[in-house]
């Protein structure tokens, strides 16, 4: 849940990157971390296994600038994508303001994408959220690989509600900041709408 601190004049929001295992969620955060100026970012924390698979979450605090004298801070989290870490995924969704779903474009991961999307919807319900009412962006990652499904196929499979979608190659950064900007903007717009503004 967004938090406005009037004494330090800050608006804090929580963004969660969700999606199937090895889809590129951590890579998105790593690219953002690498390309952001030191004064705009905090430390990136990765709670990972010895083989660098996300165990609990990755965390990256970012400052995006000021609105009306208030600093806007976004806390970016990823969830562990592997199926058996479902308990951890639920915990990270607590207080979420916006979700990015990082889909793996490879044909053989189509089923994993669908399963993860259903899992996201279900876990949000358990936390008292409705995915259709949350700021939500889909990223089709790994577009540079040879064995990818078309965007139309991916769209049909996991984006029936037509939320904004972006193609990406997170390893080289293509689409990474476009996705981040879109979700941050959607969250701020929703915050204003929710306050009756």
């Amino acid at each position: 849940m967004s938090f406005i601190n009037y004494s330090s004049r800050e608006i804090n929001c929580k963004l969660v990157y969700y999606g199937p295992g090895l889809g590129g969620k951590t890579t998105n955060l790593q690219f953002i971390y690498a390309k952001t100026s030191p004064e705009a970012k905090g430390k990136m924390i990765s709670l990972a296994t010895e083989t660098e698979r996300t165990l609990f979450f990755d965390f990256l605090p970012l400052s995006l600038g000021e609105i009306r004298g208030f600093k806007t801070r976004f806390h970016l989290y990823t969830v562990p994508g592997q199926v058996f870490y479902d308990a951890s995924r639920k915990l990270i969704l607590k207080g979420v303001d916006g979700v990015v779903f990082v889909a793996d474009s490879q044909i053989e991961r189509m089923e994993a994408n669908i399963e993860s999307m259903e899992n996201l919807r279900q876990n949000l319900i358990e936390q008292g959220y409705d995915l259709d009412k949350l700021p939500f962006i889909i990223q089709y990652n790994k577009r540079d690989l040879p064995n990818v499904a078309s965007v139309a196929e991916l769209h049909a499979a996991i984006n029936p509600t037509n939320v904004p979608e972006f193609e990406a190659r997170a390893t080289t950064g293509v689409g990474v900041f476009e996705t981040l900007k879109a979700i941050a903007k959607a969250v701020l717009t929703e915050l204003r709408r929710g306050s009756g503004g």
Partner: protein
Amino acid sequence: MFPEEQRQISSVCQRLHRDANAKAVLLIGRDGQPIAEAGEVGEIDVTSLSSLTAGNVAATGGISKILREKDFTSQFHEGEKTHVHITLVAGRAILVVLFDERSSLGLVRLRVRKAAEEMARLFEQVAKKAAAGTGPSILNEITDADIDKLFND
């Protein structure tokens, strides 16, 4: 959070810091957002500490569910020099006290209990105000142009 309650919560943190002889006191939302702080926080990465503590409390809450327990309301981590006492306040926020040999777990527990009660009352007040719709106005003032400006390269 409303400015008045924010101020009162900060002053409860400051009093707890003093009364418990603590190094530092932090209040964190359950989602990992820092809310208030007092004491020697200058050298601490408060943002990271908040996020990790919230993750820790959430994981402990998950364990309590599996064991069919109610939330475990407090945790204690004993370090060589610095110890950490973590308490869930009214199920809404996490109160973290960092302390060293200048204090003791008994004293910290005692002072935390009182501070947690005061904070719970303040949260109640905030919830009532929020329900009455007397919300802060900064969000109402934000325009599309403000948001767009933030994302201009």
